[in-house]
């Protein structure tokens, strides 16, 4: 009798603690989002999108930083995505269980979770030092290095979802593997690959550490790829650490912009995946 009471109480206690843990976790995360929304929206205005980052003590916007972030993300993805998709194709279709593929998969996983500041140091050593100065292209390359492992991983996972029967049917018609891959496998896995790209963009656009010493920052408008360029993450970092009220406000607004963009991308990616999965299962 007593034993069963003890067991019941232990059970209740454990379950209560688990519920409390969930509440604590959600409260902390909710608190962060709430502060972000409140402080970020306080500074939302048209100015944000039409004016340059200001010198301390005056009003301004984030136009050059937004442009810099978009440009570097676009270039980074344009370089990283094709490499990532091709490497993922190799792993899923050509290499499969070969030794080289296994090693590549492991190396890719290591790159996937390597600290992003290491990527910054790497690009600094191989691009910034030879060039002699910080530049937008160095920043874009750093972002590409971060995007590659993400794309490799998702592409491989998505290509592996394509039923073997479809590939066999294509092979039976006499198609070479490349023909099967480009005409059968890629179209079947299209939405999956797009999802992977969206996730890569989301991952890349919040990265700060690798941009600190590759793209650096620029207080003015610049579209020159060989020159330092303003970008949201580094502007947020510098402005938030500053003692100036207006800069701090801009940092919050910038943080909100980035978070909203990333959440939107992640949600779209999710919707694409859930629209895709029933079709895959039926196939």
């Amino acid at each position, binding site marked *: 009798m007593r034993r069963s009471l003890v067991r*019941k109480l*232990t059970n209740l206690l*454990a*379950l209560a603690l688990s*519920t409390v*843990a*969930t509440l604590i*976790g*959600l409260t902390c995360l909710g*608190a*962060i989002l709430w*502060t972000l929304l409140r402080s970020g929206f306080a500074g939302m205005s048209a100015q944000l999108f039409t004016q340059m980052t200001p010198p301390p003590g005056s009003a301004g916007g984030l136009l050059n930083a937004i442009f810099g972030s978009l440009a570097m993300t676009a270039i980074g993805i344009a370089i990283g995505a094709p*490499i*990532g998709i*091709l*490497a993922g194709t*190799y792993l899923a279709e050509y*290499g499969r269980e070969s030794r*080289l593929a296994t*090693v590549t998969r492991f*190396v*890719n996983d*290591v*790159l996937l*979770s*390597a*600290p992003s*500041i*290491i*990527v910054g*140091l*790497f690009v600094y*050593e*191989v691009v910034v030092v030879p060039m002699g100065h910080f530049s937008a292209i160095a920043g874009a390359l750093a972002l590409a290095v971060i995007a*590659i492992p993400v794309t490799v991983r998702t592409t491989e996972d998505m290509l592996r979802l394509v039923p073997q029967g479809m590939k066999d049917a294509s092979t039976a018609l006499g*198609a*070479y*593997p*490349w*023909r099967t*891959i*480009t005409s059968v496998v890629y179209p079947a896995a299209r939405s999956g690959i797009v999802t992977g790209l969206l996730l890569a963009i*989301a*991952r890349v656009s919040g990265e*700060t*550490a690798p941009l*600190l010493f590759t793209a*650096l920052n620029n207080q003015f408008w610049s579209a020159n790829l060989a020159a330092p360029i303003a970008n949201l*993450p580094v502007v*947020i970092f510098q402005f*938030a650490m500053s003692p100036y009220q207006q800069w701090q406000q801009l*940092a*919050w607004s910038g*943080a909100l912009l*980035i*978070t909203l963009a*990333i*959440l939107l991308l*992640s949600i779209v990616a*999710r919707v694409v995946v859930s629209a895709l999965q029933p079709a895959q299962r039926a196939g």
Partner: protein
Amino acid sequence: MDQLSIAAAESTHAMRQRLGERLFGTATFVAAGLVLALLGGVTVALLVGAWPALAHFRFAFVTREIWNPVTNTFGALAPIYGTLVTSLIAMLIAVPVSFGVALFLTELSPAWLKRPVGVAIELLAAVPSIIFGIWGLFVLAPILQESVQPWLIAHLGPLPSVGSLFRGPPFGIGVLTAGLVLAIMVLPFISSVMRDVFETVPDVLKESGYSLGATTWEVVWYVVVPYSRAGMLGGVMLGLGRALGETMAVTFVIGNAHRISSSLLAPGTTISASIANEFTEAVGELYTSSLIALGVLLFLITFSVIAAARFMLLRLERRALTSV
């Protein structure tokens, strides 16, 4: 069309296909090789950059606490200590809480709540770390400074041995704050991995437990946990890898002081925070090189943690495959 031109067309078609195959196959192969080269390149570039410092200070680089740009003497002990301690604090908090969240999501939560909470946690794992950093600086640090830290100093400070961790003035920012921010940051990450791992436990196993009269907790503790031990450990290690290498969430709140204090409330520094704060301002080859050497150390630490985690998750995947 006569026979001959058909044959000719067929052979050019076949040739084109073969050429396409060679080009495409090579392209995928080269891309995979690039991924390998990337890791090799990172290793080589970092070692080359760190060489002047490593050659100059030799082993003393990792055993000395001093970090003095004026006299050009650099030792990495304080950042190493800060990295390990902040990550330890983060893990001590995040692992039990994540376990609770995963348990709630798989065993307790009503069906209608499962998806929204699960999705919310996954989305939060995508929030960039700089957001956690500025929240830590503007919201968490003042709260800690005004209420939590004075309480800790008053109540835990006088205790013997443990007390030394909670002495000194309440700065708000410092090692403890950095650990807390890291904990909140890795929480969604570890929770979602743990939940996924718990969900791989076959229902039959759990049902057998319940049919013997076990309580929910007993099923979790004696069936779910032993079954998913490797996966849980893998998830924790991945979280640890993130915490160790995290830059932005820490840089805002650690205080960037190159010294080892016995108190957790004092400012400190981590490897990544030192690099982020000082790299662009570093003058002289030795200073820059020392910061890159810090990067090498960070790479070594995270590489071993990540490799261990991947190895464990891989073993789990294999087991899942063979059991199906």
